């Protein structure tokens, strides 16, 4: 039964992929679907057509704690777009409302109709009370009550997706139009046109193998004379199982690329301790040597591989190792490091999107979206302070 369910799900995603809609419905993006579960707002929308409207006099409270105030930047670049997006939001909510009515009507029509699946195996299930044609599975299957229940679930999923689609489009437009304007506050620019993939990060040696990439954003800039490139992405790998081709997420999080305050030629990677045997195997099958360092806490937590024993120690001074430990605990130890080509790459794994949009039921002031970005950027800049990347001590 579960097997059949996953086959249906696979087929559903392949159909979405065919129409270029998969990115809106991927399990990792499904965060927007929480909007449909704001039951009070949904109830008000459906039964009373009641929507919270924009108060133009109170669009943004500047309390994110940035070094310079964000409000002037907001008034100059984002406020002019607020009205346009508010109209889009209202249109999207009306579409959601209409689609809910259509879905409820169709569901009732579909499931109140008497359906009787013959036990006799046939390509088309035909009863003398209703005709129901299915082409979901061209193969020979028996129709029985469990399959009917499964089919009900599948239809429900389809209608949820149908209702959710305008919400996904609206949030997507915020991501592509508003978020880049927030990044310009930090003098960061959208780099996704120059780097639409992460192939340039592969030489760092910590990127897992992947088949598909969902690049959320790629921005570039500097802080305290340290160059920064920030990439949020989801990497998926296609695996072949008994159920067919499946996609598994191998990485979801952000890559942060810093220019280092030291020059070096080789490659040094720092990953979590994989155990004696795995470390030994890794060393044998790569051109990297296992580096044993003096800090016992660091050694316990991490494993260091490098092309050069001396260079690894030049980079990983005792003080720097302490800073890396502090940084790792800030991100629940879900972090890997790589030094290569005079740059430091941090690979930070997070279970959810770092930049989460506000609910579609809230007015389009983008206050929540903007504050999320401001807080996250501050966390990135704190990394520079924690690792003292802006200091050129020569020691």
């Amino acid at each position, binding site marked *: 039964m579960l097997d059949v369910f996953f086959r249906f799900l696979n087929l559903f995603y392949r159909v979405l992929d065919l129409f270029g809609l998969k990115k809106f419905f991927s399990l990792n993006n499904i965060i927007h679907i929480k909007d449909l579960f704001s039951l009070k707002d949904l109830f008000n929308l459906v039964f009373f057509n009641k929507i919270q409207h924009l108060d133009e006099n109170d669009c943004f409270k500047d309390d994110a704690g940035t070094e310079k105030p964000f409000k002037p930047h907001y008034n100059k670049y984002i406020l002019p777009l607020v009205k346009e997006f508010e109209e889009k939001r209202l249109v999207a909510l009306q579409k959601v409302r209409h689609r809910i009515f259509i879905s409820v009507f169709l569901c009732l029509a579909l499931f109140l109709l008497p359906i009787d699946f013959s036990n006799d195996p046939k390509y088309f299930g035909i009863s003398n009370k209703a005709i129901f044609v299915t082409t979901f599975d061209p193969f020979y299957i028996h129709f029985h009550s469990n399959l009917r229940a499964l089919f009900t679930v599948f239809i429900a999923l389809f209608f949820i997706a149908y209702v959710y689609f305008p919400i996904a489009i609206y949030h997507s437009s915020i991501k592509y139009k508003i978020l880049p304007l927030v990044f310009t506050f930090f003098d960061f620019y959208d780099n996704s046109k120059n780097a639409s993939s992460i192939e340039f990060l592969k030489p760092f040696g910590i990127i897992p193998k992947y088949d598909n990439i969902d690049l959320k954003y790629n921005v570039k800039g500097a802080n305290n004379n340290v160059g920064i490139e920030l990439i949020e992405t989801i990497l998926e790998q296609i695996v072949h199982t008994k159920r067919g081709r499946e996609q598994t997420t191998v990485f979801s999080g952000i890559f942060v690329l810093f220019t280092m305050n030291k020059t070096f030629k080789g490659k040094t990677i720092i990953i979590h301790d994989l155990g004696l045997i795995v470390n030994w195997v890794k060393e044998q099958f790569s051109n990297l040597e296992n580096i*044993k360092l003096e800090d016992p806490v660091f050694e316990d937590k991490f494993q260091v591989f490098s092309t050069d*024993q*001396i260079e*690894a*120690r*030049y980079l990983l*001074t005792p003080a720097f190792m302490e800073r890396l430990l502090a940084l790792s605990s800030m991100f629940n130890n879900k972090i890997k490091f790589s030094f290569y080509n005079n740059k430091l790459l941090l690979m930070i794994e997070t279970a959810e999107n770092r930049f989460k949009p506000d609910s579609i039921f809230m007015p389009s002031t983008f206050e929540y979206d903007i504050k999320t970005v401001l807080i996250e950027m501050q966390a990135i800049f704190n990394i520079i302070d924690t690792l003292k990347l802006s200091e050129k*001590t*020569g020691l």
Partner: protein
Amino acid sequence: MGISFWWILLLFAGIIYFLYAKVISNRNKMLEALSGIDVQMKKRFDLIPNILKIAQKFLEHEKNLITEITQLRTKVQSDYNKKDKNAVAEHLSVAEGLQSKMGQLMISAENYPNLKSNETMVQAMRTYNEVEAEIAAARRFYNAAVTQLNNSVQIFPSSFIASIIGIEDMPFLKTDEKEKAPIDVDKFLK
């Protein structure tokens, strides 16, 4: 003699070979680390004449120090037997002495504002600091390699193999006693 005897003999020979290979590879690692220090010290060696040339113009009262540095620089570049424990200790001691004297020169330079603000000297000192950082890294690698070698030379059963093939433990790089002493900050701030 049964087959099991030959298997036991083969296993024993395998263990002996493994220990032998371990001791040799640890010794080679130590030699690699020692060469690493020499490579970095060569960079310092090439840098020192430039620094001395600039410093000589300003540090007329430090002629003795400059002479000592020149002599140590020559001595540290002389060949030595890397497999001889005493020769390695002597070489590292001379290198430590040179570093100590260069440190004194840098401190003396602080008392000469004209020298301190000289653009070429500033650049040379910056490069020197970078090289010192690399030497520090090389020394850490050397100490790590010596730890591994000394473990295999001193701990049974690899110590038995090491004594047969004539591999001895090697000295660690130690800090100068003066550098270990606490610093009197007031002395510098007068």
